[in-house]
């Protein structure tokens, strides 16, 4: 399906960084996150019909691929690894911002998997609670609750 391929390319152009960040929140490894995106998009390219909400469908596919890869790899996760944020943030980043980035990356590690993933999906992937609920196949209330709890923990860690 040429049209679907074109649409997927557009989704990739628009959301690749956000999809990668969401996959990273699960795999905590850039290599595995890329593999998850690769697997998910290859599967999506062979679809016979276009999904109703393509954006949500792509996020869900990448998430499922990431979960599967983590399950298969069984690799131990380095909790101190600064993996979500770009370490080469550029010359305009002040020392204070660098420190905040480092502490935020650390603080994300102390959250539960659900809380961290929700924070990343809402704050960094710009998904609404409704979209996150569809991606995760959970209720909006549960998602909102994960987000509130995660944010409170981050606030406590970073503002103390």
């Amino acid at each position, binding site marked *: 399906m040429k049209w679907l391929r074109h649409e997927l390319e557009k989704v990739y152009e628009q959301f690749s960084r956000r999809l990668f960040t969401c996959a990273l929140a699960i795999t905590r490894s850039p290599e595995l996150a890329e593999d998850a995106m690769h697997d998910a*998009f290859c599967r999506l390219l062979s679809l016979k019909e276009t999904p109703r909400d393509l954006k949500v469908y792509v996020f869900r596919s990448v998430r499922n691929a990431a979960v599967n890869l983590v399950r298969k790899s069984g690799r131990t996760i380095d909790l101190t690894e600064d993996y979500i944020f770009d370490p080469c943030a550029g010359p305009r980043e002040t020392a204070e911002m660098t420190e905040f*980035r480092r502490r935020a990356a650390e603080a994300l590690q102390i959250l539960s998997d659900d809380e961290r993933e929700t924070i990343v999906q809402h704050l*960094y992937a710009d998904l609404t609670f409704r979209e996150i609920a569809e991606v995760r196949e959970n209720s909006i209330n549960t998602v909102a609750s994960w987000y509130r709890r995660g944010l409170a923990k981050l606030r406590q860690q970073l*503002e103390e």
Partner: protein
Amino acid sequence: MDEFELRLKNLLLSKPSEDLRGRIFGRGPDRAVLAGILRRPIRLGWAVAFALAIGLVGFFSARLQSEITAPRSISPEVIVEICIVESGSNRNDFDLTKPSTHFLSGDLTVGVEDRRGI
């Protein structure tokens, strides 16, 4: 979204490697190279010189092509008409309307060529 959330949101995210797109869709790097060429700034002088050069090459190649392929059958043939009359007297030896006792001596060479098509 409060100030704390905005501060968190403003942190720059990691991004996937450049070749991931190519690995998924197959033709990413080609497009990237093409986009790089198209985005390169071009000086006006160079652009005009390039256009002129292309025009000249096109003109001369078209001319050469027309010379090579012109069919010979429609080219006009060379037509030459020669009429030489050599006579030793002032008489018109070709006036055969009257009786005459004079005859031309020597050989008379007459040639006729077709001038059709002019």
